[in-house]
């Protein structure tokens, strides 16, 4: 009893404090929200705001120092130089090609996993698709650099039938990106297939729908949001990347221009202006994806 009594006062104080806090919702909210929101506000949004602001600054042509004045010069340069248009067009084209390729590759395996495979096979396949996502990005690009290299395995194998590999070109960028982001497409589509109730398919069959008709008129519309969700990853990850194009191609990408202007050319304002291009394209893409219901399928 005495030991119990001696431990009571601090415990009682703690209890009273906690009870008081429990009644004060704003105080609790402040304790919970202040660290993450404060962190984000200061570290991230602050940095982002400065970056976006600097898109309107420019370099003094003589001293190359950044002039902190409002100007639209960078935007004019961005639009007037044909090379920029070529690069933007190349990046968007490859991002779309990668997205379509990954859709085509993901559909059969996702369908097989969700609707045909036995539970054991399914969980094995699930792990097999997941593993590349966890393994190092650069390792996976490096694998393709070896395969695609001049005189490398692909050239060697294709050489037997008198062909040549794509070596380092836009085609290799397309292949490597399709490889890198494929799991991001498979997993949402798999989840989409799995969500379709079997009774719907039975109903379609009972009403005389053949397998192909059921697939086209029932399954496809129902997985469309999942496909749109997957395409957000494949499209946006391709759009922002500059390392893969630098390693497996000689052609510049959106990100490469930003990177070169930020680093080598030391023209941060122009880099910031150019960074608005992928942000703008992604904003449009996300609006379309939302229309297709992508955010309910994530």
């Amino acid at each position, binding site marked *: 009893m005495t030991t119990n009594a001696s431990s009571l006062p601090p415990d009682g104080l*703690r209890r009273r404090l*906690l009870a008081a806090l429990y009644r004060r919702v704003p105080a*609790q*909210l402040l304790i*919970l*929200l202040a660290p*993450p*929101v404060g*962190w*984000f506000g200061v570290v*991230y*949004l602050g*940095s*982002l705001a400065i*970056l976006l602001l*600097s898109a309107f600054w420019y370099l003094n042509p003589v001293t190359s120092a950044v002039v902190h004045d409002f100007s639209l010069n960078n935007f004019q340069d961005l639009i007037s130089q044909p090379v920029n248009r070529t690069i933007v067009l190349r990046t968007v084209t490859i991002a779309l090609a990668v997205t379509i390729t990954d859709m085509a*590759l993901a559909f059969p*395996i996702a369908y*097989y996993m969700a*609707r*045909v495979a036995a539970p054991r096979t399914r*969980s094995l396949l*699930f*792990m*097999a*698709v*997941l593993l*590349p996502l*966890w*393994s*190092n*990005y*650069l*390792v996976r690009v*490096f*694998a*393709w650099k*070896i395969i695609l*290299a001049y*005189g*490398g395995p692909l050239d*060697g194998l294709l050489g037997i039938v008198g062909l040549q590999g794509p070596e380092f070109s836009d085609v290799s960028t397309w292949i490597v990106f399709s490889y890198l982001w*494929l799991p*991001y497409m498979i997993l949402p589509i798999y989840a989409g297939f799995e969500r379709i109730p*079997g009774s719907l398919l*039975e109903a379609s069959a009972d009403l005389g729908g053949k397998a192909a008709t059921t697939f086209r008129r029932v399954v496809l519309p129902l997985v469309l949001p999942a496909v749109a*969700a997957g395409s957000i990853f494949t499209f*946006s990850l391709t*759009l*922002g990347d500059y*390392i893969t194009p630098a*390693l497996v191609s000689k052609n510049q990408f959106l*990100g490469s221009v*930003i990177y070169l202007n*930020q680093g080598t050319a030391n023209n941060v304002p122009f880099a*910031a202006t150019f*960074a608005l291009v*992928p942000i703008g394209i*992604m904003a449009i893409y996300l609006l379309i994806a939302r229309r297709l219901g992508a955010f309910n399928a*994530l």
Partner: protein
Amino acid sequence: MKSDRKPGGSGRWLRVATIGVLAFLYVPLLFILLYAFDTDKTQSWPIQGLTLDWFGAAFDNQDVRDALVLSIQVGLGATALALVLGTLASFAVHRFSFFGRGTVSFLLVLPIALPGIVTGMALNATINASGIGFTTLTIIIGHATFCIVVVFNNVIARLRRTSRSIEEASMDLGADTLQTFRYITFPVIRTALIAGGLLAFALSFDEVIVTTFTAGTQKTIPLWILEQIQRAHQLPVVNVVAVFLILLSTIPVFLAQRLSSDTTGVAGR
């Protein structure tokens, strides 16, 4: 579920396509393994001969060891920060309604939704302007920024599936807020924290672009690999490190599989 097993040829066609996609995913990794044993440094086809020398060379390489240590430090630091901040944010959003509640999850996902180079440049400009210099801490700050959302997503998904009545029962039975958290809430979200933490660590361990802008002259494992690929002086050593990393990545996949009844979403992204 199994009722839509298609009759005849289409089932076989599906199986062939599945095997084809799996081959596409794994054959490139086999080439990494193969060239880790190649005697020739130039990595041409076909390989010249087999050797184990590169494994010794990689093990003795001080740069590799330093980069590995740095990557682990950064991963642990970023994961710890993300666990604390992500959990706090998920509780705030789940438990309370307040002005701007809908924007919190949107805000947190921004660093992943925007191209990494944008986040990288923004942080780089701020670090330069503040004059704090590029240290391990700046890499951790950069990584934590995009790791918070994966913890947030995992924890809030768990909270949404958990009834608050078990906490109320605990309070009714006389437990105070801290005791309830310790004995009721924490055990409920524990596996979500493990899953989110694993994912945060893996994201940090793998990150290249933001790291390029926040590391200064320091080298994490991905930055070391990038530099080696570009210089091409000792590519077979890169192969050995790559094989090691591929083997390492099987650990979280197995752990995630064991937690799979609790994990959520597509890799949290």
